[in-house]
């Protein structure tokens, strides 16, 4: 069981260290405007990559049909400016309905 304690501790300390990078540096290190710009663009790049991999892949392989179809629905709704709740619930409903029909 001590191995599990070690996993939790290492994960907690390591993750917190990653998260503290920004708040610890902010106001102490003056970043050039171009770097600031790249940091916010980088966050969006990461989020879009998470969106794409989360929509299409599962455990290194393809995620099947139901989830990509749900996220595609969400993408179309979001692009057309649908309200947030419609986008999110639309995705879940599409995926759930396809699975209920036996399409995974």
């Amino acid at each position: 069981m001590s191995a599990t304690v070690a996993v939790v501790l290492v994960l907690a300390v390591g993750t917190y260290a990653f998260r503290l990078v920004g708040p610890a540096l902010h106001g102490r290190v003056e970043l050039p405007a171009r770097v600031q710009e790249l940091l916010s663009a980088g966050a969006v790049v990461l989020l879009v990559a998470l969106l794409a991999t989360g929509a299409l892949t599962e455990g290194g392989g393809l995620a099947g049909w139901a989830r990509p179809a749900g996220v595609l629905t969400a993408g179309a709704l979001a692009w057309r400016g649908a309200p947030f709740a419609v986008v999110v619930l639309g995705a879940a409903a599409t995926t759930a309905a396809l699975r209920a029909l036996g399409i995974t």
Partner: protein
Amino acid sequence: MRSAQRTPSLFPLDPELLRDVSLVCLAGGIVGVSFGAIAVAGGLPVWVPVVMSLVVYAGSAQFSAVGVLLAGGGPVAAAATGLLLNTRTAAFSLAVAEHIGRGRLARLAGAHLVTDETVAFTLAQHDPARRRAAFWISGLGMFAVWNAGVLVGALAGSALGDTARYGLDAAFPAVLAALVLPALRKDADVRRAALPGAALALAVTPVVPAGVPVLLALAGLVLHGRGRRRSA
């Protein structure tokens, strides 16, 4: 500037934001219940998912680490998998640092609340006050609901069954789509970096460890600002 104002300007409570955050909290809470249930059903003691959620607080890393532990992959592999997945939070924390606040306590507490969703909510707002409100409202709300969900799941077991049935695995990419696509649509510079980055992440997913694909997507940043400089 403070206290004399009748309407507190620290946290502009936007009903629309509160509603959107509540929805993501609800979905997160349900996933938390399933995380607690899976960990305990797999044979881990109740405290493991509960304490892990409080001190690690990162959904995908928690699922992966517990998955590796339950599959007998060993503690080193479990920790390494989780840390690799969480490396991106360093970049996220840099991007939202200015919206967290300057006080020591705000920095220390705020850092722990940096997740994919809080960053997406924060950056989807347009002025600094709203960004700050979005960060703290989504951060505190999701932290509370995620941990409550995990506790319930760990104690009550797998009453919810497979959350895939509710399409929740599609809901989280959809949250990101809703929050990020407007920025992508408006900003050609970001689009030029993000789309090739996402394509690269997808292409390498089968051959690299989990967590690495999204980090490699950052290579797309070399294309950021290209068009602008050419036209300037």
